C-alpha cells in the first residue's frame, strides 16, 4: 500500500544523497539540496541516513495515505496538516490510512523532506534513487495520481482506535545545525581575478537570491564585481558550492544539479557545512559572505557532523525503545 498524490506541487521529487562516480561523463551528482534535513527526516523514522526521501517545494503536493505509515518531515516548515489538523515537523508521526496531508503556508525554509520508515521506493539509475531532471532518469517526479510505496512494511500497533495521527513524544532540535548570519566560503582558484575593490565588496556588501534560482544554481544579485584583465578560462571542474563570476559581474552559487564543468572564474566555494543553510533560503532573501581557510572549513564540518551524528543516534535510540514498547 502506498501514498497517492491528489494535487501536484510545483517540484516534488524523490532524492537521496546523490549519484557519484559518473562526473567524468558529464552526469552531475544531484541528490537532495539539504542533506542535513534528509538525514534528520530519515533518523526520525529509523532509516539509514541516505534512504530515499521526497523533496518538496512550496506549494507542495497534497498526499493521501492509503496505508497507515510512520513518517517525518524535516527541513522547511510549510505548516503541514493532516485532515486540517496541524502536524508537527522534526518529529516522527504515525499517520492513519485514509488521511490527507496538505500544506498551508510557507513559514520557514525553502524545501521540506518527507521520509517514510524504510525509505520510498523509486527507480534506481546508476546506483542512485535521485531524480535526474535533465535526462529524466532515476527517482520519481510526483505528479497528480502518482503512487509511491515504502520499501518496507510499516510497523503495526502505533495508533489507538481514535486518533487520526500521533506524533511520537520527541523532536529533533535542528536550530544549531543551520548557520545564522553570513555564509562562509573558501577562496577559489580565480579569486585574484577580482580587483581589490571587488574583493572588499564581496565581503562587505550583501547578496540577494534572485528569482532565477533553481536546483542547478542560485543566482545572486549584488553590486557588480570587477575583474582585472585576464585570459579567457578553459573549462575545468566545478563543485557544489562553487561561486562562479558571470560576465555581468554577478555571482552564481552551484547547487545539487550543477554542471560538472564550467569556464567562468571560480572566485570562491561555499563550505560544505553551510550548504544546507543556503538550500533553505528562498528567492529574495539576503545573506553576506565571509572567508575561512580550507582547514577551518574542515573543522567546522567535523563539529557539525558530530552534532548530527549525536542527533541521529538519539533519534534511532528513542524510536527503537518506543517500537519495543508498542
Amino acid at each position, binding site marked *: 500500500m502506498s501514498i497517492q498524490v491528489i494535487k501536484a506541487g510545483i517540484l516534488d521529487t524523490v532524492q537521496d544523497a546523490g549519484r557519484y562516480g559518473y562526473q567524468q561523463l558529464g552526469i552531475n551528482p544531484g541528490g537532495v539540496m539539504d542533506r542535513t534535513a534528509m538525514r534528520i527526516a530519515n533518523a526520525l523514522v529509523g532509516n539509514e541516513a541516505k534512504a530515499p526521501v521526497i523533496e518538496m517545494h512550496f506549494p507542495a503536493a497534497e498526499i493521501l495515505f492509503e496505508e497507515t505509515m510512520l513518517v517525518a518531515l524535516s527541513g522547511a516548515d510549510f505548516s503541514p496538516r493532516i485532515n486540517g489538523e496541524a502536524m508537527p515537523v522534526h518529529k516522527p508521526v504515525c499517520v492513519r490510512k485514509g488521511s490527507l496531508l496538505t500544506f498551508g503556508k510557507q513559514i520557514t525554509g525553502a524545501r521540506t523532506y518527507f521520509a517514510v520508515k524504510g525509505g520510498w521506493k523509486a527507480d534506481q539509475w546508476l546506483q542512485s534513487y535521485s531524480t535526474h531532471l535533465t535526462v529524466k532518469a532515476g527517482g520519481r517526479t510526483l505528479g497528480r495520481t502518482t503512487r509511491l510505496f515504502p520499501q518496507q512494511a510499516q510497523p503495526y500497533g502505533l495508533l489507538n482506535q481514535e486518533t487520526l495521527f500521533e506524533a511520537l513524544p520527541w523532536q529533533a532540535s535542528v536550530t544549531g545545525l543551520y548557520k545564522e548570519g553570513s555564509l562562509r566560503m573558501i577562496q577559489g582558484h580565480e579569486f585574484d581575478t577580482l580587483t581589490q575593490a571587488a574583493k572588499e565588496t564581496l565581503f562587505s556588501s550583501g547578496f540577494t537570491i534572485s528569482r532565477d534560482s533553481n536546483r542547478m544554481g542560485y543566482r545572486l544579485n549584488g553590486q557588480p564585481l570587477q575583474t582585472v584583465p585576464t585570459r579567457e578560462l578553459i573549462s575545468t571542474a566545478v563543485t557544489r558550492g562553487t561561486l562562479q563570476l558571470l560576465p555581468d559581474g554577478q555571482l552564481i552559487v552551484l547547487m545539487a544539479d550543477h554542471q560538472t564543468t564550467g569556464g567562468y572564474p571560480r572566485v570562491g*566555494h561555499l563550505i560544505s557545512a553551510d550548504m544546507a543553510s543556503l538550500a533553505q533560503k528562498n528567492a529574495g532573501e539576503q545573506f553576506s559572505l565571509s572567508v575561512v581557510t580550507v582547514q577551518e572549513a574542515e573543522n567546522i564540518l567535523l563539529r557539525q557532523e558530530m552534532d548530527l551524528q549525536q542527533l541521529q543516534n538519539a533519534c534511532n535510540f528513542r524510536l527503537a525503545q518506543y517500537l519495543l514498547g508498542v
Partner: protein
Amino acid sequence: MSSTPAYQLYPCGDHAITITWGNTITEEANQQVMALYHYLCDRKITGLLDLVPAYSSLTLVYDLAALIKKNPGRSVYGMMESQLQEAVGSVALDRDTVRNRVNIPVCYDLSLAPDLVALSEQHRISVEEVIQIHTSSTYRVYMIGFLPGFAYMGSVDERIRTARKTSPRTIVPAGSVGIAGEQTGIYPLDSPGGWQLVGQTPLRLFDVTRAAPCLLQPGDEVQFCPITLTEFYKLKEA
C-alpha cells in the same frame, strides 16, 4: 622515472582537489590528464567520489564528511594532496593511454545543418569543402561536460574554425554536430546551445536505457563519416 611536467594543485571547494597543467588546450596536457585519470581509476583511494577530467586538469571530489570523521585532527586536504603527488610521481604521464576509436556517421544535408551555408560563406569555401575538412581529421575527446555525454572534441582545422553564435538557439536537437572555435561537439540531448550546427548524427550519444549511457568517453578518438539523408533516417529508425 617519468618526467613530471610543471603542475599546480589547488582546492576546488572544501571537498575537492584539482591538479592542473595550465590554462591551455593541448594534446600533451590532456594526455597527462588522461594518464593520471586511468591510473587513479585503477586504484582505490578511500573516500574518493568522483574523478573529473577536463582539458588540462583533473579534479578529485571526495567524501569530506566521512574522511574527517575517520581522521579527526588531520587535514583531509593535505592527505588528498600527498596521495595525488605520489600518484603523479609514479604514473608515466607522457604515455598516452589506450584510446577507443569511434566512427560517427554524420549527415551534412542542409536540412539538418542550419549553419553550414553561412559558415562556408564566412570562410569563402564551398559547403563540400567544409564537409571534406570536417571529416578528414580525427578528433580527440578532451573532456565531457555541459550536459551528460557532451564531448568536447578538438582540434578543428583552422580553415573552418568559427566562433559560437552571438545569440544561442533555445533548442538544438539531440544529435546535432556543432563547431565552436577549435572545438567540435555533438549535442547528446535536446538543449539550448550556441555552437554552429553543421550536421547531425543518427546515433544516440546518450541513452539512459543503456548500461553505459554515454557513447563517448574522455580520451576517445572520433572520426566523422559523411552519410546521405536516406542513410540518416534509416539509421535513426534502426
